[in-house]
């Protein structure tokens, strides 16, 4: 409890530093999620349509998913150096596998008779994509983004090690000085952010699957 009081005092006394770190953390996470969604959702769709391509790409992403996040962040350092952009690239690499794999699985899970019915009704392939396939695959795609978002927020903490800034900086400095209140200044908001993102995505997921319950 003592620690908690010191933590709150620290945040109020250094509110500008805290807010800046929070801003960097959120910015890094948002941009990484946005870019990986822009790349990976189309990639997942292409994979689902082209079975020849999907084997290779899915294998690559499945292996990439297994590699520890710290290893991916650390290996970026000798390749790209320190700073915001290397951290951003590392986070995008980490977020790609869950989004691509889930988009692929979402499209693959659609009953082929539904597609057949749609084309029988005279829909062209673009209409089938936007009116049938994307809405049906959306819950699975969002679940992938949810996993990716939590992964990004967690790894953005690690980005402090390669100079990416964010709330991880407080944790790293707090550890360096063995200053527990300073550790908590980073740890508590990061934990809170991750839980918030999970709750938000769960709400969106419920929203898009509403038709299944009505």
């Amino acid at each position: 409890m003592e620690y908690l009081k010191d933590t709150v005092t620290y945040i109020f006394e250094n509110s500008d530093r805290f807010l800046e770190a929070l801003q960097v953390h959120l910015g890094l996470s948002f941009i990484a999620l946005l870019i990986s969604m822009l790349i990976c959702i189309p990639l997942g769709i292409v994979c689902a349509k082209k079975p020849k391509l999907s084997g290779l790409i899915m294998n690559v992403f499945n292996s990439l998913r297994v590699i520890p996040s710290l290893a991916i962040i650390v290996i970026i350092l000798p390749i790209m150096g320190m700073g915001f952009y290397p951290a951003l690239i590392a986070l995008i690499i980490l977020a790609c596998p869950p989004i691509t794999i889930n988009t692929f699985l979402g499209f693959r899970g659609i009953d082929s008779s539904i597609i057949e019915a749609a084309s029988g009704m005279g829909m062209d392939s673009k209409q089938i994509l936007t009116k049938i396939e994307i809405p049906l695959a959306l819950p699975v795609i969002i679940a992938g983004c949810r996993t990716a978002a939590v992964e990004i927020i967690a790894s953005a903490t690690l980005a402090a090690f390669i100079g990416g800034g964010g709330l991880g900086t407080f944790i790293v400095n707090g550890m360096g000085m063995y200053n527990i209140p300073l550790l908590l200044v980073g740890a508590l908001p990061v934990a809170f952010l991750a839980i918030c993102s999970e709750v938000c995505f769960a709400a969106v997921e419920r929203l898009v699957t509403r038709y299944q319950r009505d």
Partner: protein
Amino acid sequence: MVNYITNYYDTILALFLDHLRLTFGALAIALLFALPVGYLLTRWKSLSVLVLSILGIIYVIPSMAFFALLIPFLGLGMKPAIFALVAYSQLILVRNVMVGFQSIDQAIIEAGKGMGLNWFHLFWKIELPLALPIILGGVRIAAVAIIGIGTIAAWINAGGLGVLLFEGLYQNSTHKIIIGTILVSTLALITNYILLRLENRLALKAKGQL
């Protein structure tokens, strides 16, 4: 690079073995909790939502933050690392144990009862073999997650391959970074591959095709 490996192969090997010990120690302790809890939750379904949400919240907490939060209570070293790794893997393991037992066709259990099997035999000869592929799937995902989070545990002095990564970062030594990354990725990929093979084999066995 080659020089570094030949000079320090014993240190590298020791860190690798440390990592293995950390991973499999945590996994064994995690299973000790998850197997009974998962099995009991299939009997008390009303509790399962609550337990899984709590485990879900723990799972979501970023590992660096979790380690930092544990320092005031457990300090540094192996103890908080194993605690965190066990806590993380509970969601995956408990969920898969539950799903494994729930996915068994009730008719099979009834047939077992009809053949006069007692509670223990029913569990040992029927339920467990049928649930095992899904449980092992959970063990695989948990093992990979533990290997990954275990590297971060080097940050709180728990040892393992993460030491190479952090030393590489702080000393700006590309050798250490590359060797650490390769070793830890290989360990994760091989563990994943072996457990996946085992999982497929057990699935065939459960279906009676092997």
